[in-house]
């Protein structure tokens, strides 16, 4: 798939995100828009996933993911992005996005396996747990003789959770080198900038000191850079060290008035704001 095609999908996914959040008047658009390019690149190009179709023409989903690259979303609040990408990739009907955060939905506010939504392998929302789960799955792949990778995305605010550092310590110690972790460095969290709330300081030096191979993506909203970064990560994986990608993004990327502030971390656009957002995001595959 060409960069342009990925960019087109990303534009549609961004439309889905703002529409989903608007549709239920709640959710987290800012971080979702910021990580859109990454998830589109992963699911539509960089990860090997099972393309077989099952019931209703949807991609058949197997929980164990043997022979597939697997992705875990640790910062579960950017669920609208995850749901849109899973749906657009073929795991379930796009129309189901209209049920996001509404009663009796499989698209819970934060992702869960509990409702049986294909594509989700663990619940997330309470922060700091995803990397541990990804490590466990990476270890299982090794035990199974499965040479595919496990990806996990975390937020930068999430680095404040202690469990992240338990996991950070474990992965190099046990040479979990089929793990590619990504931190979304958008510099914002609910109460303000991470700099004000609880500064991360030098994450690169920290992860290096723990024994990770650290690389950077300077602009995580530039599809070319994202693709290049993921290619490199896969190339250097499997060599004894877990990989950490520090990826700078802009919260709200793609919608000018949502960018550059923590304000859009967890609020929904009103009708007028939705129209303004959609005007900036071309429809490519077709709205749900």
């Amino acid at each position: 798939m060409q960069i342009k095609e990925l960019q087109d999908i990303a534009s549609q996914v961004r439309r889905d995100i703002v529409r989903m959040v608007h549709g239920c008047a709640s959710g987290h658009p800012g971080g979702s828009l910021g990580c859109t390019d990454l998830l589109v690149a992963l699911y539509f190009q960089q990860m090997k996933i099972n393309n077989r179709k099952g019931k209703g023409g949807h991609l058949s989903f197997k929980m164990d993911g043997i022979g597939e690259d697997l992705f875990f979303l640790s910062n579960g609040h950017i669920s609208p992005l995850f749901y849109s990408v899973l749906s657009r990739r073929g795991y379930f009907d796009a129309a189901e996005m209209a049920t996001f955060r509404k009663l009796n939905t499989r698209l819970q506010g934060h992702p869960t396996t509990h409702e049986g939504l294909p594509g989700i392998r663990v619940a997330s929302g309470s922060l700091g747990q995803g990397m541990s789960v990804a490590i466990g799955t990476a270890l299982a792949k090794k035990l199974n003789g499965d040479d595919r990778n496990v990806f996990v995305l975390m937020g930068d605010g999430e680095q404040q959770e202690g469990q992240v550092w338990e996991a950070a310590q474990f992965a190099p110690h046990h040479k979990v080198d089929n793990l590619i972790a990504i931190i979304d460095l958008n510099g914002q969290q609910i109460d303000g900038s991470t700099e004000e709330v609880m500064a991360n300081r030098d994450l690169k030096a920290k992860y290096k000191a723990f024994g990770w191979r650290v690389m950077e993506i300077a602009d995580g909203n530039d599809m070319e850079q994202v693709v290049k970064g993921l290619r490199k990560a896969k190339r250097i994986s499997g060599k004894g060290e877990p990989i950490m990608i520090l990826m700078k993004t802009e919260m709200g990327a793609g919608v000018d008035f949502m960018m550059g502030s923590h304000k859009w971390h967890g609020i929904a656009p009103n009708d007028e704001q939705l129209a303004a957002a959609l005007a900036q995001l071309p429809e490519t595959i077709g709205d749900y």
Partner: protein
Amino acid sequence: MKKYTFTEKQDTRSGFGDGMTELGRTNPKVVTLCADLVGSLKTATFIKENPERFFQTGIAEANMMGISAGLTIGGFIPYPTTFANFGSGRVYDQIRQSIAYSDKNVKIAVSHAGLTLGEDGATHQILEDIAMMRAMPNMTVINPCDYNQTKAATIALASHVGPAYLRFGRPKVPVFTDPNQKFEIGKAWMVNEGTDVSIFATGHLVWEAIQAGETLAEKGISAEIINIHTIKPLDTEAILKSVRKTKCVVTCEEHQANGGLGDAVAQVLSQNFIAPQEYIAVNDSFGESGKPEQLMAKYGLSAENIIEKALKVIGRKN
């Protein structure tokens, strides 16, 4: 007729370790993890025989629970191990989100539960874990009574699908159940039939209940003793059948009265068959340092206390 025979004293955690050894030889999907307490959890033989199926996490229980959840995704059956306090309260949220809510096939196996850890004192004892784990949707809660039953429960859990919490202790306690028993999750074990009072006990207190039953028999009181090794799902049928016959009950546990076996039984009775109940449990208190038997006496968990409560509850019958 007696359904139990005292053979020797052995710790329940060794039952777990020996169960793991057997699983290591028979079930290639079973893996274990530990947060720096291999000696305490008695998994050394499993680890020696299956080094690739053991993961040392260091003193990092939250990460251990998450890794366990991840291992299930690849089809494995992980048994994360630590002390009960650190395998429940310390990581409640990790168990809740990554294991129970995510419906992962993880068997949390914890030792040193209850008061009888002894000298280490309240920081290392836990008397609230049954309450926490019972409250958690999807979680199976098992508290076996002796070495043989702990071993059987450990093995049975590998064939059970879904999250489970297996709780056992530190001290050596009498071994009295069948070494070749089949462990049935959710099925209470009738130890002795009786007609005057139902005594429902779990964990180490089953033996105390048996001792109490023998003394009560000498006094002409017929006690029905049932071992509730599975606290969730609770065998409500066995409980109701017994209490409908005896019309009164004593529940016995090495745990807080709040939220434990006693409350689980009371919940069943209040909705189905009202009967007087007395609790053998710790009453809203932390533990303290001491020898196990001293602590059992001080906190009212011994056979003598059970006899006292049985006589009291019989007196409360209409």
